[in-house]
């Protein structure tokens, strides 16, 4: 008799359904300890507020949950599997000791409102990390409260606004270079500032003459990413700071690319007044598939009164505590004290490195980017020949002649076993390929990546159709994003 396979496929773990499709009444993965107080009549207690039914919530056993999520996990690419050269995202190794220490009982189970007397450990972590970050950035004070980089930007701009307000006029505009991350203009709008674009010069840097012309007493700050999104250090940074300060404006630095600077140069020393850091980039906290992040904001003295509250202080008896009495504070941007679990990890990373390790890390990150640049020059168009720091931006100009664009090349990179670089950003480079290897890549891994990229460049010449149809080796092929947006299906429904 011929055996007919219906639901089973080859590699059944490649075909895991939705959890709801495994559910059936009576299965359970939970058990509660016996109730040690009298049971209650819920209807009597809750009346009409009582919920009777939980709809289509699943009912499954523990082994099914383990297999479900383990199977799903194998469909993800991850740093642990290989190079993840996403420009501007700093996908570096996430040390495992960070995970262990963040799960220590007193830290993982500490309640944010427990008395300060029994919170000295957490307060010490906040203080030590703050001190390290202040030293690394060359600034004077810091808040760890913002939940992510974009919220750090907002916090920074709110402090800028409060500072100007304290001088009588909050000003109206924020200057933002055309190479900036999309969060910068979005944040400026959230802080109720108008955005004025600043054009880059032909070397990919701020056009200093244009800045001088655009700067006036209505400009609250310039939001500058340095190195910028082309991976280029703003060589005229001193002049830029001078222009801003001469008219009473402030220099905000987006610290997304701080991995190029730690231990080599300090933003506070080159004129930055306020900046945010991304602990999930520079300080190795895991991206976790898209968060949590953490976006501390470091400031110079004159902005210190405006920091979000509370701030950590040392009390007269030498113990640490929170200070809430901050009349000039911009207020709170998040409940409690920020993403504390990320502080633990970032501090563990800093302690593992020490001053020498942090410096070597930066050097290796810059070394790696330049190695990739050298390896791919000729095969891909390099729109700006300005020296690269921690990342390098190519364009798809050569491949576009064959109808192959940056996103197509990116999809083909997947077939070679790497995560793609960042596509189509920064906007000032048409068809950008933005590559940031970080310090975590060995020479061998980079050699493989360079070879893969060069080989794709050849494939584009020989068989562009094959590249256009990539990826060829993944569980699913290219997905229809247009259909997904046109008729959004955002949840499972029974019978669907």
């Amino acid at each position, binding site marked *: 008799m011929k055996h007919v396979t219906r639901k089973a496929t080859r590699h059944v773990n490649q075909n895991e359904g939705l959890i709801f499709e495994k559910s059936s009444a009576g299965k359970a*993965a939970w058990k509660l300890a016996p109730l040690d*107080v009298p049971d209650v009549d819920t209807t009597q207690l809750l009346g009409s507020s009582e919920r009777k039914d939980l709809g289509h919530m699943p009912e499954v056993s523990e082994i099914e949950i383990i297999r479900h999520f383990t199977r799903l996990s*194998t469909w993800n690419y991850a740093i642990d599997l290989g190079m993840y050269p996403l420009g501007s995202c700093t996908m570096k190794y996430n040390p495992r000791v960070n995970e262990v220490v963040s799960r220590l009982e007193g830290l993982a189970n500490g309640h944010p409102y427990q008395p300060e007397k029994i919170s000295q450990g957490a307060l010490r972590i906040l203080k030590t990390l703050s001190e390290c970050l202040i030293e690394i950035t060359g600034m004077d004070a810091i808040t760890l409260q913002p939940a992510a980089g974009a919220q750090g930007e907002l916090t920074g701009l709110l402090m800028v606004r409060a500072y100007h307000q304290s001088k009588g006029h909050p000003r109206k505009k924020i200057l933002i270079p055309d190479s900036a991350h999309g969060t910068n203009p979005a944040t400026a709008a959230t802080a109720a500032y108008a955005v004025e674009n600043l054009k880059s010069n032909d070397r990919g840097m701020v056009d200093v003459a244009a800045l001088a012309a655009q700067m006036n007493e209505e400009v609250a700050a310039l939001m500058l990413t340095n190195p910028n999104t082309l991976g280029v250090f703003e060589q005229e940074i001193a002049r830029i700071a001078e222009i801003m300060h001469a008219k009473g404006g402030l220099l905000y630095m987006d610290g997304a690319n701080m991995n190029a600077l730690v231990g080599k140069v300090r933003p506070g020393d080159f004129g930055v007044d306020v900046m945010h850091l991304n602990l999930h980039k520079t300080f190795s906290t895991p991206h976790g598939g898209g*968060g949590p992040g953490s976006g501390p904001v470091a400031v110079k003295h004159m902005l210190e009164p405006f920091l979000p509250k509370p701030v950590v202080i040392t009390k007269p008896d030498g113990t640490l505590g929170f200070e809430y009495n901050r009349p000039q504070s911009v207020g709170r941007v*998040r409940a409690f004290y920020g993403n504390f679990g990320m502080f633990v990890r970032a501090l563990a990373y800093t302690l593992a*490195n020490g001053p020498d390790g942090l410096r070597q890390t930066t050097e290796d990150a810059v070394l790696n980017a330049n190695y990739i640049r050298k390896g791919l020059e000729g095969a891909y168009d390099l729109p700006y020949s300005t020296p690269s720091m921690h990342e390098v931006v190519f364009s798809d100009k050569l491949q576009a002649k064959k109808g192959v664009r940056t996103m197509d090349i990116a999809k083909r990179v997947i077939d070679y076993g790497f995560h793609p670089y960042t596509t189509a950003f920064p906007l000032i480079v048409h068809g950008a390929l933005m590559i940031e290897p970080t310090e975590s890549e060995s020479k061998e891994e980079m050699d493989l990546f360079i070879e893969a990229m060069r080989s794709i460049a050849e494939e584009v010449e020989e068989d562009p159709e094959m590249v256009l149809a990539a990826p060829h080796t993944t569980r699913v092929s290219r997905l229809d994003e247009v259909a997904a947006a046109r008729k959004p299906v955002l949840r499972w429904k029974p019978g669907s």
Partner: protein
Amino acid sequence: MRYLPKSPADREAILKAIGARSIDDLFAPIPAEYRLHRDLKVPHQMAESEIVDWFRERSRENGDGYITFLGAGAYSHYRPVIIDSLISRGEFLTAYTPYQAEISQGTLQSIFEFQTMICELTGMEVANASMYDGSTAATEAVMMAVRLTGRRSVAIARSLHPEYREVLATYASHQGMPLASVGFTESGRLDLKELEKSITQDTACVLVQSPNFFGTIEDVAAIAEIAHQRGAMLVASIAEAVSLGIVEPPRQADVIAMEAQSFGVPLGFGGPYCGVIATREQYVRQMPGRLVGQTTDRNGKRGFVLTLATREQHIRREKATSNICTNQALVALMVNIFMTIYGKVGLRELAKHNLAKTAYAAQQFGKHAKVLFPGAPRFNEFVVQTSEDPYAINSRILGHKIVGGLPLKKFYPELGNAALWCCTELTTRSAIDTAVGLVAESERSVKSAKEEASVQDDVQEVVR
């Protein structure tokens, strides 16, 4: 440095390949006067064992081994062990935002399941992939209502978590959004008469929390009716997600902004947590945050992608619905696994245990002190008013390695010597009895001190 995969020879070979004489050549673009020629003043490089020791010491200084009666937006629930087993897989832990869908289906499908379960639990039609936390979710939900109604002011329940109110105030002050505060009645519920008065033609939404900061479950239907009659939307905040197992969700709201920390996320001294926004389908294009949608690949196979990105900052820049860039993916995964473990039946049973512990505790406290806000149903929190300052009582309770309820003087001075107590399935009867015993002792000593004083008065009277 042990995280760096290069030998000195590798570095030399790379320098040679790129044609640089030394590493300093690569840093030449940085003006010389700014280059750092000294070590950063940070602690010296530590071995892994030293790092673990250092943090163990901090852990011991941080309430390790204490039983807590604190809630107030951060809840102590049991976390099944498989949550950490699963989220520790490098494929989840060390992946980026799932922009490259073909190699991110694990994250994407799990978020799709998360969105589905949040919809089931909240009674809403769509939910996003998560937000920073409950406070920012509430704030973003309010700004969404402002965009949807074209109105600018907001009526906020005073019984909303005080720190959520502070976050909203920070954002609102720069958005030109006037805020009106609406008080609560003797039952702890929103004062509906005051609500009626505070809604104007310009009120975009009413923001209310249920169960509210005092643990009291609001009459959401009545609040929704008042808001809707006046053309305002209703935004409901939920800080204690476990309540959804047994408390009717605020279905009459237009937007629900919740904090899902209770679903398997460690207390972690306040973060990272997991905010979520859920709403009706018709409002989805004004919803902030990432969304995962179902689609098909070129062979017709089901797959998932990030969708409706035209709302977001990387496309819309200053015209985006929000400046938010990240979500809390890994924390949302914890929440997702927790919801899957407890599921349809377990979540209800879990919530019922919370209810039972709280009912017992409130009853016991009520024998010796005043439990405020009777007459309205509550979930797992309640307010106890004592004769003595709760800080003083708590410091005695702390001696038993128990953390007492949150003194409310800072947030609600009008409630006097009041504290917010919380019980979950983890609160033992013996901890409740110990805490109640110490509160009773305090009440007795205050009472006898008073009696003594009045006896003294009497004595003086007689003498006179």
